[in-house]
């Protein structure tokens, strides 16, 4: 394997890494000027520092966005099929598709960053964001446990830093700490699980593991290994009971970080989780049917799914902060998505991926709205959203599209995603064994309707509170960000009307 060939196949990752380095360099050099000025004029330091950092932010965001666009271009030119180092880097249509999706999500996170004023070091922040994207792409495209672990860690470390990044807000460090502790504990479990799986099979490549396991009789030790491995992913997708970090991280983190955790990290985790269970552990599927449970990973995932749906939806009912609400709804949505994996086979996997992709798009959009509202009103409680319709009909409209899509109202993407998911789950098992899970999910989404409607009520019906109405910088149009939110809303609508565009592509890309 020559380095040149490696570079060719990993060109996308390479481009993103190089972009990250460039952005980092720009961030470091421009800030030095700014500090020089700050020392010179003690009085005007806030202003000068602020505008300089805003300029740095603009330049860095532009370069980061450009780099991502180039990387998407290179991803389009990847060969159709290639495997490196016995599965450490696999290129298939599916991995290329998800690399592009991950980069697109990162692209929107970069756009969100542009208007984030509280970030003092935009260069470093964007560099880490881009490196986290590299982690996503590695996760998506590897079928080997060591590589998956390193991808998880790269992503995890970047996200810990991104969550704790905002030093002007104490809550950010607290959220970062919680996220870090949960993340590293669960990755320790994953690691222990991987070591057991390695011990049973003597190998770390998923395809080879699957071959090995098909011949060996199932040992309890292996089952423990599988459960422990799954825990790391259950953490990443915020499935109950491993979700406890999510509300705090969503609320305390800078908004682009939260959006990135909710979207990119989740999508990539679902891709790799699906690969692990459906490729690696395929022989140990088990059966999650209510009356005839057979041990394996699918009853485990089914239990996680049911618990997530119930806990997420019920606790979301009691929230009064939009970001926490989104976090709990994220828990519930992770539960819905798991149903696709429980159903197994390629159709179930593609339904899960369709759902998680549309969900990620929706959530990035919702966080975009939250970011804009937060900029105007300095908060993200419900009260900050009251009467949004009168302040910005466009944002209110987009937000209602996102909320209704999350609630699963046709003709938005969320509806078709749910329909696809549930129908696949029902067909997966001839004896309707998964009916119980689908029933739980339907019940959960019935409950969820209530709190999504509360958000809409706040936006459309409630009177704006006085403090917000008289906020001074209430007219600060960030055109780019508004356009981004509108584009995302249009995508959600489009994917609801023409789900084929993505769903058929996904199914065709399935191995």
């Amino acid at each position: 394997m020559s380095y040149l060939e490696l570079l060719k196949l990993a060109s996308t990752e390479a481009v993103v890494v190089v972009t990250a380095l460039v952005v980092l360099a720009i961030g470091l050099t421009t800030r030095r000027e700014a500090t020089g000025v700050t020392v010179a004029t003690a009085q005007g330091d806030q202003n000068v520092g602020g505008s300089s950092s805003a300029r740095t932010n603009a330049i860095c965001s532009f370069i980061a966005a450009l780099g991502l666009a180039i990387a998407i271009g290179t991803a389009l030119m990847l060969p159709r099929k290639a495997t490196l180092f016995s599965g450490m880097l696999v290129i298939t249509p599916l991995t290329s598709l998800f690399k592009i999706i991950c980069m697109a999500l990162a692209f929107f996170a970069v756009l969100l960053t542009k208007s984030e004023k509280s970030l003092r070091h935009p260069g470093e922040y964007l560099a880490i964001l881009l490196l986290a994207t590299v982690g996503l792409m590695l996760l998506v495209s590897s079928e080997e446990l060591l590589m998956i672990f390193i991808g998880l860690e790269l992503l995890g470390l970047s996200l810990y830093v991104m969550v704790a990044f905002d030093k002007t807000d104490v809550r950010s460090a607290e959220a970062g700490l919680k996220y870090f502790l949960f993340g590293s504990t669960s990755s320790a479990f994953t690691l222990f699980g991987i070591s057991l799986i390695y011990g049973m099979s003597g190998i770390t490549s998923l395809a080879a593991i699957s071959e090995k396991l098909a011949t060996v009789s199932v040992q309890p030790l292996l089952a423990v290994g599988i459960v422990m491995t799954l825990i790391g992913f259950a953490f990443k997708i915020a499935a109950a009971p491993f979700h406890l970090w999510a509300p705090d991280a969503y609320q305390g983190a800078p908004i682009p970080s939260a959006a990135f955790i909710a979207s990119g990290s989740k999508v990539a985790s679902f891709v790799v989780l699906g690969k692990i269970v459906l490729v690696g552990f395929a022989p140990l599927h088990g059966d999650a049917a209510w009356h005839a449970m057979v041990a394996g990973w699918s009853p485990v995932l089914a239990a996680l799914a049911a618990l997530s749906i119930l806990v997420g939806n019920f606790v979301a009912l009691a929230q009064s902060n939009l970001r926490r609400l989104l976090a709990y709804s994220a828990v519930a949505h992770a539960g819905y998505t798991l149903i696709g994996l429980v159903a197994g086979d390629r159709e179930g996997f593609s339904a899960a991926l369709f759902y998680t992709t549309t969900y990620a798009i929706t959530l990035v959009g919702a966080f975009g709205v939250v970011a804009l509202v937060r900029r105007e009103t300095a908060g993200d409680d419900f009260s900050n959203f009251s009467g949004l319709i009168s302040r910005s009909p466009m944002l209110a409209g987009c937000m209602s599209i996102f909320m209704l899509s999350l609630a699963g109202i046709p003709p938005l993407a969320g509806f078709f995603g749910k329909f696809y998911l549930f129908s696949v789950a029902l067909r997966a098992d001839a004896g309707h064994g998964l009916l119980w899970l689908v029933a739980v999910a339907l019940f959960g989404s019935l409950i969820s309707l209530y709190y999504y409607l509360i958000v809409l009520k706040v936006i459309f019906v409630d009177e704006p509170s006085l403090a917000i109405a008289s906020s001074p910088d209430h007219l600060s149009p960030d055109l780019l960000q508004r356009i981004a939110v509108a584009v995302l809303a249009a995508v959600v609508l489009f994917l609801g009307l023409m789900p084929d565009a993505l769903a058929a592509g996904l199914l065709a890309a399935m191995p």
Partner: protein
Amino acid sequence: MPPFLFWLFASLMLVFGAAVVLNRNPVASALSLVVSFLGLAALFMSLDAYFVGIIQVLVYAGAVMVLFLFIIMLLNLRAEEGRRINWLAATGGIVVALILVIQIFSVIGHFQAARQTFPSLERSTTDDVWNIGALLFSNYNLPFQIVGVLVLVATIGVVLLSKREPR
């Protein structure tokens, strides 16, 4: 390695591991951690993994422990005095950990291969640096480079997070 040495190092590691958790004083915990890892390194050696054993000593005793001690000094932490132990929480945690141990025990008990001894090696593995190095630069080239990216992220993160910012 004779069995008694295995049990000696294993119990050394476990006892000092427990000491890490039980000590009130962070400095004592950090030192216990090092002793525990020395025991672990000895176990690695007993498994003919000399390179990993040495790395373990170098990285943990040399780097990680220093980092811990440095932070403890920097933040000027003292033992948690005056803090009462919350027995309810403590019992809960211990019970969960015990259940975990019991689960692992019973699962390993069901594992047939666990009752076998280790097969003998063809030759001594004192030269395993060469073997591991060769693997690192061939099969594990990609993860090796990615770990470089990971360390870069950690560096940026640590510098930014621990820096004191002007208000």
